[in-house]
């Protein structure tokens, strides 16, 4: 007698023997639908319909929000100061907490056995980036650093020190790299870009203000020399008090060490190539000038 338990068991039996699902068999989960408030009906809802007694309240003629009966209102009496000056020119970075990253990996939306890029994050619907709204990418926030336990090769645009420590403590790798707005728009929506029939552009360097950040090994910048980055990894491990795992012994060493060229937008695709989605072909330029331009 085989006592092998069927996965599902009685529930599967029931499911297989029930009639087909129709609208007549469905009902919402009890407690999920809340009845709407209907004004002007019944003994208590009727009469003044929740509007109060006479005056501007009942008659709906109250003045605008902020009006203080003629006195100079608060929002005008307080003098301006340059807190918001140039706010529309400031680069913004969509936050991504380590908690959310762990969730995305756990439910299978992100694949930790491949490098995690902004394209992967957007495909997994983990973050929403709007390049037209001064978004320059994603920043890794250290909320959930205690729960984080995934070994990943992740590329973000900004990361806090604690987030870097949390990623490296689990044997992962973090890189901060810069994407100019055009490259960013291509990165987050690659397929619509390929359908445009344009050659892949070069990724531009960051502006003068951001160059020191992306050359800083402590911030794991993509322009920083690798030896200094290794030293910074050791220093951070000492600071946060964990043992830095040796990546050269790792089975995923090749994946973890794969990094993009500073001018490259996609892994495996160089600037200057044209991707033909219909025929599944990649076209590469052969003209010297073009090769030189796209290779510089």
């Amino acid at each position, binding site marked *: 007698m085989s006592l092998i338990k069927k996965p599902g068991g009685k529930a599967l039996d029931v499911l297989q023997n029930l009639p087909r699902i129709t609208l007549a068999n469905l009902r919402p989960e009890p407690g999920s639908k809340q009845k709407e408030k209907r004004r002007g009906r019944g003994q208590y809802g009727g009469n003044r319909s929740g509007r109060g007694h006479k005056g501007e309240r009942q008659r709906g003629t109250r003045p605008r929000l902020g009006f203080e009966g003629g006195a100079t209102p608060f929002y005008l009496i307080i003098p301006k100061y340059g807190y918001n000056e140039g706010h529309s020119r400031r680069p913004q970075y969509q936050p991504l907490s380590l908690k959310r990253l762990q969730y995305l990996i756990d439910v*299978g939306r992100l694949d930790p056995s491949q490098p995690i890029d902004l394209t992967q994050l957007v495909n997994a619907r983990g973050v929403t980036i709007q390049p037209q709204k001064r978004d320059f990418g994603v920043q890794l926030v250290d909320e959930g650093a205690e729960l984080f336990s995934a070994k990943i090769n992740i590329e973000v645009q900004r990361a806090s020190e604690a987030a870097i420590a949390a990623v490296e403590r689990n044997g992962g790798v973090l890189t901060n790299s810069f994407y100019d707005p055009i490259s960013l728009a291509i990165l987050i929506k690659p*397929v619509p870009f390929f359908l445009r*029939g344009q050659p892949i552009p070069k990724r531009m360097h960051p502006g003068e203000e951001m*160059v020191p950040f992306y*050359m800083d090994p402590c911030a794991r910048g993509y322009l920083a020399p690798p030896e200094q980055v290794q030293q910074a990894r050791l220093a951070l491990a000492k600071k946060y008090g964990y043992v830095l795992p040796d990546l050269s012994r790792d089975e995923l060493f090749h994946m973890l060490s794969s990094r993009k060229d500073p001018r490259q937008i996609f892994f495996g695709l160089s600037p200057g190539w044209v991707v*033909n989605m219909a025929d599944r072909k990649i*076209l590469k330029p052969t003209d010297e000038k*073009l090769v030189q*331009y796209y290779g510089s």
Partner: protein
Amino acid sequence: MAAPVLAVRTGILFRSFKTFTTLKPFIPVISQYGVLTQTANYHPKPLKLNLKDPYIPDKTSEKTPEWQLTEKFDRKRYGRYGDASGIDPATLWPTDEKLEAMIKDEAEWHPTLEVMLKNISIREEEEAAKRRAKEKLIASNMAKMPKMVADWRRERSETKKKMAEEKTRKDKLLAEARERFGYAVDPRSSKFLEMVAEVEKEQKKKKKLLKRREKEEQAATPLAPADE
């Protein structure tokens, strides 16, 4: 009849789809809840490229809108239909003139890393020099401070003394005037001023007499020993 259909439907969840979606064979993970194997994957939206019936605008006819005769639209058609659009792929890349313009723009608006680093270093040096000069100035001024404080204190005490002296002198004169005239004289009146002038004259005479006497004494004393 319903059962086999349902069996197929439930079966699909535990099998993987074949053609379109990317199969990711995951290594089973052993966690506190048992062995977990991922079965569901990301299914991207199907790309509707419409390769069977591509739209190719008639370049010669007048009825085709202008925007369908542009290079940009040609590139989009190639991107969408591929070789079936009938466009020479060599036109997708920029021409020589356009390439030169692009290189020129880049040279102007996107300086190389070396140039940027140089600018940064120059700027930082300037800032550091400014800061150093400021700190030097502050240090030198602070070094002068004890002396300046002592000077000020000394001056303050001196002015105080002077004021006290003035006051005593004035009080004396007032007392003199009171004695002489018999009533409190207003210091601003002409009588008082005349009296002050007289007092000063008398004082001067006294001084002169004193000086003469001193001179005579001095003249007397050296002569006396010289004589002896």
